[in-house]
C-alpha cells in the first residue's frame, strides 16, 4: 500500500485567481525517494505544501497512511504535521536561537505549552538531538547560534530538525537551491542516506534535473500545474525533459 496517495489535487490561492494545480495524481511508496521536477512557477512548492496543508487545496484528495488529509483541522492537523518532516529551500531556521534549540523545535508537536515556553525539553529529546547533530556532522556547533553557520551547515540543522520529528515521511522543498553545486550534492547524499537509515520515504521538489536523476528513484514532471511525466527515473530522457521545460526555453 502506498504511504501517500494524491488524487486529482487542485489548488488556487484566491477563489477568483488562476488554478495553480490542475488535478495532480500520484502515489508515494514506503521506500520511495520521489522527485517533482518542473520549471519555476509550475506549482511544485504549492503541491508539496498541500500535503501537510500549509496551503489549503481547493479540490481532490490526499491520503497519508490511509488517512484522508484534506479534511483535517486543529489538533488532528497538527498530529499529521508532526508525522511529516519538512526541509525548506531557505532553511527557515530560527536565526536567533542556538542550533540545539532549532533541532529541539522539531519536537514541538510532542511537547506541551509550558515546556515549550521554558524550552524545557525532556532528556530523551536532547539525547536524540545530539545523536542527530552528530550524524549530520555538527556536533561541534551545538551551542552556536543558527545565524553563525554557513549555508550547508544550516541545511544540516534543517535535516536534523525534520528527523527530530520522528517523521513517517519527509517533504523536501528545493532543499539545495540556496547552496552551491558541491554542497548540494553532499546535502542530497546526506538526506538520502539518512532517509534510508530511518526508513523514511521522501517527496522532493527539485529544480536541478541532474540531481533528481542521480538521487531519486521516481520522478514526476510538472508543467503549469499539469503532470507531464510519471515514472521511474531511468525512463526520463531528453525529449521528455524538453516537453516539461518547454515553457522555460521559450
Amino acid at each position, binding site marked *: 500500500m502506498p504511504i501517500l496517495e494524491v488524487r486529482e489535487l487542485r489548488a488556487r490561492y484566491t477563489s477568483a485567481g488562476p488554478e495553480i494545480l490542475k488535478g495532480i495524481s500520484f502515489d508515494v511508496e514506503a521506500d520511495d525517494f520521489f522527485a517533482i521536477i518542473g520549471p519555476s512557477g509550475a506549482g511544485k512548492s504549492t503541491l508539496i505544501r498541500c500535503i501537510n496543508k500549509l496551503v489549503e487545496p481547493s479540490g481532490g484528495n490526499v491520503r497519508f497512511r490511509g488517512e484522508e488529509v484534506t479534511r483535517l483541522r486543529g489538533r488532528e492537523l497538527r498530529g499529521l504535521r508532526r508525522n511529516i518532516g519538512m526541509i525548506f529551500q531557505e532553511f527557515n531556521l530560527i536565526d536567533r536561537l542556538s542550533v*540545539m534549540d532549532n533541532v529541539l523545535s522539531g519536537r514541538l508537536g*510532542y511537547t506541551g505549552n509550558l515546556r515549550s515556553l*521554558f*524550552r*524545557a525539553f525532556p*532528556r*530523551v529529546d*536532547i*539525547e*536524540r538531538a*545530539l*545523536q542527530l547533530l*552528530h*550524524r549530520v556532522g555538527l556536533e561541534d556547533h*551545538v551551542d552556536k547560534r543558527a545565524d553563525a553557520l554557513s549555508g550547508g551547515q544550516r541545511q544540516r540543522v534543517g535535516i536534523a530538525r525534520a528527523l527530530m520529528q*520522528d517523521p*513517517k515521511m519527509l517533504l523536501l522543498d528545493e532543499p539545495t537551491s540556496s547552496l552551491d553545486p558541491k554542497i548540494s550534492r553532499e546535502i542530497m547524499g546526506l538526506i*538520502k*542516506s539518512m532517509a*534510508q*537509515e*530511518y*526508513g*523514511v520515504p521522501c517527496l522532493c521538489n527539485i529544480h536541478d534535473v541532474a540531481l533528481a536523476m542521480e538521487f531519486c528513484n521516481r520522478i514526476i514532471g510538472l508543467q503549469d500545474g499539469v503532470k507531464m511525466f510519471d515514472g521511474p527515473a531511468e525512463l526520463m530522457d531528453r525529449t521528455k525533459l524538453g516537453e516539461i521545460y518547454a515553457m522555460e526555453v521559450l
Partner: protein
Amino acid sequence: MPLVHETAFAIQLDHENLRRARGPETAEMNAPSNGAGTDAGATSAATAATADRLLADRRRRRVGRLVIATVLVAAVVWSVDVTIVQDTDWKRMGSLANVLEAAGEFVGVDWGLFPDLAKPALETFMIACLGTLLGVLVCIPVAWFGALNITPFKPVTYPLARLMMTLSRSIHEIVWALFFVAVVGLGAMAGIFALAMRSIGFIAKMSAEAIEDIDPGPVEAIRAVGGNGFQVLIYAILPQVLPQILGVVVFEWEINIRRSAVLGLVGAGGLGLVFFRQMNTFNFPGVTTVLLAILGIILIGEVVSHFARKAAI
C-alpha cells in the same frame, strides 16, 4: 541497506537504549534494526555526558532567570502595595457596583452639546497644525546642528542641538503649556508654542539621524560639479531625507492633534476647555460627547496622514 556507516550503527544502538528508557508509548523511533558497531558504547556514553552538560546549563540559566523574575515580581508587589492597596481610598470607591455605577454615568451622548463643539474642535485642529508647523521651522536649525556629518562647528553646535532635543522631549506638553500660559497669557498662542516646543525633540532627532545615514555619493557629486554648501544641502542631502522627514512630521502632527485636545486643561484653548467644563458641571454624557468629537478629529488626522504619507513616498 547499502549506505550504513559506523556512526549509523552507533545511533541504532542508542535508539535501542532510548526505546528502553522511554517506555512503550514513545518507542516509535524509526531506526533500522540490524547489528551494532564496535565503538557504539563509547559514543553513547559521550552523548549522555553532553546531554547532562546541556541539561545542567539549561537548569542554571533557568535559575538565573528565576532570580531576575523574583526581583521584578517583588518590585511589583511592593509598588502595588504602596500605590494601590494603601493609597486608594477604598471606602470612597465603595463596592464594585458603585464603581460600575460611576462608570455607567458616562454612557450616553449629550446631543445638545454638538453645535457648541464645532468651534473648539476646529480650534484644536488648528492649534495642532500651527504647533507642528512652528515646530518644523524651529527644527531646521536644530536638525542641522544636531547631525554629526553636517553640523557647522562640532564642539559647540552639536551638544547644543542635542541638549535642545532632550529638553524638548523631557518636558511634558502640559508643563510646556503651563510655562507659555504664564509668558504669553491664556489662549491658543500658548498652546501653539507648547506643541511646537514639544515637537522639536522628536522631529529634529529623527531628521538628524536620517541626515547622518545619507549616502555620501551625491554629496561628493554635487561638490564635484562645483556646488557650494547650500547647494549641497538642497541638491544632495534634502532629496535623500525629505520623504523620511515628511513621514516623521506627519506622525508628529497626528500626535499633536491628541495633545492639543488636552491643552485646555491649563487654559490653552480648544476642546480641552469644553471637556473640563462638562466634567466640572458633572455632565457626564457631555464628557462622552467631547471624547467622541476628539476621536472624530483624530480620525480625520489619520485619514489625511495616510494620504500624505502615500504622497511623500
